């Protein structure tokens, strides 16, 4: 039995399909991240689970029980919003106690639970503060405490840290991971920040245009992307995409980039012969190796350096292959200059091939 299961959920706003036949399963205690660009439907999905949106079709189960007929308050979920939703007319204690008060929990229990929650989020000294006097981080902690006291089956976090500055966001991210480890609660977390998603998530669901493109661990989505969208969305710096044409040469498959030949490539890379011969090679900058000067021979492509770039820790050179700008990681930036001849080869085992529809050929 899954703690949370979504089956064939579709939600339409006017003409726009915010969620298009989405299904997913979340195990107990999992930190599940919904990741995708703005407008991909991830927040709509989360809100549907909370009961704040009513889906057009599909079903949602919490602890094996359908919640489609249940009001948001009856679903055993707690939600944390992007904006601070602490009530300005109550102090920190009353805000955190609010859900318990609504449920009619008796005063002593409220006192204990709220005190414990404030301890856990490490702001016990703020219990009587006016929420207007809280810093951004303290307000977030109070909101987490308010979610915690509800002791729900699933935490729903809708971009909870996106309004914080970078440093605080990194800090709160660690906090939520600490709290997750300590309490073992099931979390569904929405973000558009892939770095955040990779760091916190046990499982990622990458969404685009209302559909889930791939579900997997951070490592799986990074190393085995289902398609071009996932490949380009996950990982930093971005994967290079090079247009290529596949053809047969002496009984083996080779790739043609511009008029140069790369290959042969292993047959298993192309078990399913694509209908079109136009493919896209996907390769990460750290999987591209470069040598100075023109070299010919197997698995070598030649180009000229267009510009170099350094972030201090990492150095990159950029060159053109098949009309696409390609980025390669290099150890020393000073070895390279604009206009240098460069001979390029790829880490063949990591090479990804995408068909014209963007699906990866496995």
């Amino acid at each position, binding site marked *: 039995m899954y703690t949370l299961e979504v089956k064939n959920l579709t939600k339409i706003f006017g003409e726009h399909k915010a969620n298009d036949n989405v299904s997913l399963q979340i195990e107990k205690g999992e930190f599940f991240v919904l990741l995708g660009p703005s407008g991909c439907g991830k927040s709509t999905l989360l809100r549907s689970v*909370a*009961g*704040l949106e009513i889906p057009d079709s599909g079903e949602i189960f919490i602890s094996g029980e359908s919640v489609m007929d249940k*009001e*948001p*308050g*009856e*679903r055993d*979920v*707690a*939600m944390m*919003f*992007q*904006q601070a*939703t602490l*009530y*300005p*007319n*109550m102090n920190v204690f009353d805000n955190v106690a*609010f*859900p318990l008060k*609504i*449920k009619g929990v008796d005063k002593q229990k409220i006192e204990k639970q709220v005190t414990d929650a404030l301890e856990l989020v490490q702001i016990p000294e703020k219990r009587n503060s*006016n929420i207007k006097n809280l810093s951004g981080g303290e307000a977030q902690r109070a909101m987490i405490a308010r979610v915690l006291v*509800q002791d729900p089956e699933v935490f*729903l976090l809708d971009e909870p840290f996106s309004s914080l500055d970078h440093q605080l966001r990194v800090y709160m991210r660690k906090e939520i991971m600490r709290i997750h480890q300590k309490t073992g609660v099931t979390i569904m977390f929405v973000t558009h920040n892939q770095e955040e998603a990779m760091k916190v998530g046990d499982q990622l669901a990458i969404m685009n245009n209302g559909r889930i493109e791939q579900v997997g661990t951070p490592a799986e989505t990074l190393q085995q992307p289902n398609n071009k969208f996932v490949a380009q969305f996950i990982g930093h710096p971005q994967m290079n995409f090079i247009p290529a044409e596949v053809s047969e040469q002496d009984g083996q498959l080779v790739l043609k980039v511009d008029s140069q030949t790369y290959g042969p490539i292993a047959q298993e890379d192309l078990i399913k012969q694509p209908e079109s011969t136009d493919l896209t090679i996907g390769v990460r900058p750290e999987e591209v190796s470069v040598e100075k000067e023109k070299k010919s021979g197997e698995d070598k492509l030649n180009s000229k350096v267009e510009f170099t770039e350094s972030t201090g820790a990492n150095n990159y050179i950029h060159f053109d292959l098949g009309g696409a700008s390609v980025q390669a990681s290099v150890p020393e930036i000073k070895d390279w200059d604009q206009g240098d001849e460069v001979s390029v080869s790829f880490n063949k085992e990591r090479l990804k091939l995408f068909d014209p529809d963007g699906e990866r050929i496995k």
Partner: protein
Amino acid sequence: MAIKSRDRLLKYLVAPAIIFSFVAGVLPMLYALRNSFYNINVRLPMQTERLIGITNYKIILGNERFQASLRNSIVFSLEGTIGAVLLGLAIALFLYYFLRNKPLLLTGLSTMLLIPALTGRISVAYIWRLLYDPVLGLINHVLGLLGFGTVEFLSNSNIAMQSVVFTDVWQWSGFAALFLYAGLVSIPREYFEEAQVIGASFFQRLRYIIIPNLKGLLLAVFLLKFMISLRNFDLISVMTGGGPGTATETVDMYLYWLAVGGRGLLSRASAGAIIMLVITIVSFMIIINLYQRQKVGE
């Protein structure tokens, strides 16, 4: 130099308004204050004006009819204000929960809600006098069709005041509703969604979210409406003339009768007006003070 001359220009531009309100508002008030210490009677124009100290105040404060009119004023203003604010809040909540996403209906209804407030008080008074009429009135006609007997809305001294208050509430609750609706819309939507996920009922939302967030606006609407209610001469004079007997006689009505309608005791009426002014100012100061103190304490 440029700034100085602009400041001077501003003063000139504001001056007419200040002069007007001084001449039309402050001067008559000061004149009334002066008169209240004299013995002026408009029925006896030949009588010499004499300073008689606080005699007028002593007499009028001891007068039972004045005391009754003061009670009537307070009852009328408080009931009318509380009624309009509560009904206004109910209408605002209805608009918020059911019509928020229907802009056309919302605009139409808002306009309709404003019409009573935009209609002159005298017109409203005549309309309702007709509606309440025992013989010609629509209300009694409908009651008759439903099998009830005729109700003397304005000439039964037990219900005359409530009938007038009802008219006042009818006129102003739509106005209050629009103010409060604007306040409701400005409450962040996430506050409501949070409460929804927590499972708060409608009344819990009302108590813990809506009322606290609308507190300032509720008070502003309350004070505004209270001020409007205190000036009730037109409505009451057309609808009941203070009657039956003195059942709906407010301070305004009584002082008018005292100075103009009856015995011509202008000075005594002035004293009554000054007393009313002091009561009004003091009660407003107390309310505003309480509100501000609470705000600081938050």
